[in-house]
């Protein structure tokens, strides 16, 4: 089993604020890793550190065995890492198709414009917004924008996909569709880390789960182990709603 | 040694002028701080302030310092008018829109000002005597202008920190949507802030007119100085502008001691770019 991503003792500070403390985990190829934790636990910061938006003060990050600790996001994209954003970032004045072509053109396969167009059409079909191809991205609704984020990430044919709360703000039927899509992506052999608040979803989909609280990793294991982990329950007790979800899944 | 003498002789003047430059820049940086708009009509408004002094002193015979109490409210109202007509509609648009909107106001004022005053220079022959200290002579007009600038800065500070509208302005500057949620009438506060910014510009123009000649086009130079000062002191930080003004005044005083005076703008703008790159929050602001 080859390790696609290794995070080793990563610490990130903003001024006096300790956002991540000594975070360490390995991610084997082909797995889905669920990343959970209460609000403000540092999940998105961890994503930003992994894909080069932030650089950690301590620790190393290895991607495909190479040290990428101080690489920029575009370096990592070229190496085959793609992500979606919790708050969607569509390229508003470009068409949906052009948005997805950006992903294909500048991802690790470095496609030509012509090929990128073909890939964009395929991916848009896959995420189910092919009817919107020529619309401006800014004119989509939230659910469609989430799919667009996904499509842009997939169009680069990444090795590793970072999904940041792709389910938030979707209605139940849209959630089911999106979960199915995540599973389909994994079936294509793409490794995934997903941040998710919806416990049911994350428990069902993930091979392993990693829990952050106040920037520290408090647990790592199979969904089952996590659900019964005392520290996790304790952390989530501070957030009764989440705790309830956690219990419900049990 | 010769340089030291020159420095000592020129420095006090640079400091006095720095205060006045600071007030001009404060107007620009206040508007930027509150609504992220760079006001390109800043220069012509400074010019209008200068003509305010001219009309009040030469035509009406009123003391120019008393005249400040006429120039200031007119500047405030003019700013509110400009905001309402030209800026409000583009306040949330990309930067280019507000830049061009204020630039069109600039063209309109200069066009009308040229028709009214021509572009020829005017002079206000107003003398407040001078004080000689050792090797340097301090001019009365500049001393009073510096004092007036300090008072204007102090008043602005009190206004922003001690009054309700002032606190609203700071709240809107901090986070406009949050301020709106709290029931602060943001449109009116933005208009007021813009008015305050132009008022400061007009005041500085009125003060400058007491010691330098001016024309309808002169404001442009002070607008550029205001950019430099704003960046030195940290854009969006009104008190920093006063410090930035002092820095510029001192710079203008000391550079000629070492180089030919025509190099001053090279140094000024070079430093401007450098500070933007290295310390975008200003020489004295927190590091990014």
């Amino acid at each position, binding site marked *: 089993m080859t390790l696609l991503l290794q995070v080793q003792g990563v610490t990130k500070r903003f001024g006096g604020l300790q956002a991540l403390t000594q975070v360490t985990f390995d991610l084997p190829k082909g797995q889905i890793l669920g990343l959970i934790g209460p609000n403000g636990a540092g999940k998105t910061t961890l994503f930003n550190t992994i894909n080069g938006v932030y650089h950690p003060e301590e620790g190393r990050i290895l991607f495909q065995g190479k040290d990428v600790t101080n690489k920029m996001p575009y370096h990592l994209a070229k190496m085959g890492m793609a992500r979606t954003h919790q708050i969607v970032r569509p390229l508003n004045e470009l068409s949906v198709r052009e948005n997805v072509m950006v992903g294909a053109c500048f991802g690790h396969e470095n496609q030509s414009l012509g090929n990128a167009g073909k890939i964009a059409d395929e991916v848009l079909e896959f995420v189910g917004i092919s009817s919107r191809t020529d619309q401006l991205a800014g004119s989509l609704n939230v659910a469609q924008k989430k799919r667009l984020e996904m499509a842009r990430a997939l169009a680069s044919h990444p090795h590793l996909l970072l999904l940041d709360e792709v389910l938030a703000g979707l209605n139940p039927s849209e959630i089911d569709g999106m979960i199915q899509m995540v599973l389909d992506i994994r079936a294509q052999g793409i490794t995934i880390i997903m941040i998710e608040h919806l416990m049911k979803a994350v428990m069902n989909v993930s091979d392993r789960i990693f829990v952050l609280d106040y920037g520290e990793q408090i647990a790592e294991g199979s969904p089952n182990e996590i659900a019964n982990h005392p520290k996790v329950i304790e952390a989530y007790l501070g957030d009764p709603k989440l705790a309830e979800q956690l219990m419900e899944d049990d | 040694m*010769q340089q030291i*003498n*020159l420095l000592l*002789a*020129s420095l006090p*003047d*640079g400091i006095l*002028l720095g205060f006045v430059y600071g007030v001009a820049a404060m107007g620009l940086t206040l508007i930027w701080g509150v609504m992220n708009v760079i006001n390109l009509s800043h220069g012509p408004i400074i010019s209008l302030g200068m003509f305010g002094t001219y009309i009040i002193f030469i035509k009406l015979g009123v003391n120019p310092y008393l005249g400040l109490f006429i120039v200031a409210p007119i500047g405030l109202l003019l700013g509110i008018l400009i905001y309402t007509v030209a800026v409000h509609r583009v306040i949330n648009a990309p930067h280019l829109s507000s830049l061009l909107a204020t630039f069109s106001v600039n063209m309109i004022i200069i*066009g009308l000002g*040229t028709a009214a005053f*021509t*572009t*020829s*220079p*005017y*002079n*206000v*022959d107003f*003398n407040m005597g*001078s004080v000689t200290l050792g*090797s*340097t*002579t301090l*001019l009365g007009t500049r001393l009073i202008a510096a004092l007036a600038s300090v008072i204007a800065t102090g008043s602005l500070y009190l206004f922003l920190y001690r009054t309700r509208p002032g606190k609203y302005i700071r709240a809107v500057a901090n986070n406009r949507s949050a301020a709106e949620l709290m029931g602060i009438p943001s449109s009116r506060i933005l208009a007021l802030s813009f008015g305050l910014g132009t008022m400061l510009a007009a005041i500085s123009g009125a003060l*400058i007119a007491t010691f*330098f*000649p*001016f*024309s309808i*086009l*002169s404001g442009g*130079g002070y607008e550029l100085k205001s950019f430099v000062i704003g960046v030195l002191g940290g854009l969006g930080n009104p008190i920093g502008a006063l410090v930035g003004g002092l820095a510029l005044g001192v710079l*203008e*005083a*000391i*550079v*000629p*001691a070492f180089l*030919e*005076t*025509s190099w*001053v*703008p090279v140094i000024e703008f070079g430093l401007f770019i450098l500070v933007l790159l290295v310390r975008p929050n200003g020489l004295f602001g927190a590091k990014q």
Partner: protein
Amino acid sequence: MKRTLFNLFALLVVFSLALTACGGGAAPATEAPVVEAPAATDAPAAATEAPVAAPEEVTITVGFTASQTGAQEVSSKRQVNGFNLWMNQVNEAGGLTLSDGTVVKFAAQSYDDESTKERVQELYTRLITEDNADFLISPYSSGLTAAAAVIAEQNGKLMITTGAADDDTYKQGYTGVFQLYTPGSLYLTSTVDMLKTLDPAAKIAIVNESDKFSTAVVGGLKPYAEAAGFEIVLEEAYASDTADFGPIINKIVDSGATVVLGGGHYPDGSTFARQLYERKVGIQFIGILVAPPDSKFSELGDAALGVTGPSQWEGKATHTEEEANGLGIEWFGPSGEEFSAAFEAAYTDKPTYHAAGGYTAGLLLEKAIRDADSVDSEAVKAALDATNIFTFYGGIKFDTSAEAHGLQVGHSMVVIQWQKNEAGELVREVVWPADVATKAPIFPITAP
């Protein structure tokens, strides 16, 4: 199919836009006849007056750009007023009559150059080709004139330059450009001559604006002053928008200078003079460019007292026919008093040297056409080359060498100084050259 329709539509939109813009651009061209119209209607009127002789009448169009907006606006307008005064006088007098009986009248055509070079060439080309200008007058200022000269020379049109002192333009191989002003390099030389009689041991600080004109002036001044035996203790150039001269004045004091020469244009020059006064630094003599001859300089109050400056022409020391006779040079045109009176009657304003320059440009053209007895460019050019006359404005004679063709060599400047009259009012007195001086110079202006 539908797409093709839209393509066609788009093309239509583009072309209609293009046509509108063309219409906008073309509109001024149709104005030319409108301006010329009064002149054209003059023709039958003149014909009815003298039906027997029925002389042929031609209207000569004189083209120029004026700065109606921008930095040069004020001086440019004065220049244009002067020119228009001459033109109206000639036309009202029934025009010029050549030996073959042809009556020559004049019409002016001008556009706003906005004080920038951006459109100067475009507008001069339009003047030549659309408005069929026969002769050209320069814009105001050396920079604009340099750009206009290229177009004039290229089209073989003669251009009389006024308000363009810089020497450079006349050293570029032009053959049809003639300068009325004393060249920049000589602006302050008469001041040096005067200074020599006042204090040969003076220590001079040269402090000038860092721009084309002032740099040219200083380029002529420095070697001249050194040759006259003066010590130059400071040379300092300052940026055009300098407002605070404090640091420079400190340098002047530090250098031990007793005399300050230099300046640049009105805003900086007047500021400089004022601050020299306010700081009471004990300078004995101040000679600065451009600002002192302007009437507005008196706005400085006491700071103006004693400040001198070179002037192309002064109403008080206007050149006279006697002077011309004394030199054995042909006199032409009205006296200075006549000019001043006519100008004041027309514009309710005293003429400045800019106005005199504009008027004399017309006068020179008139003289050259008379001498040539023709309106043909080549003949007029030959007449201009041979010109050696004296007018109220002073001598006019051109360098005809290949290196500096058209450079003014006949005109000299006077030096004015602001003094107080008996009523205690500030007045501009001519203090040099001694033979035309109205007052003796005040020296030193402050106790050393």
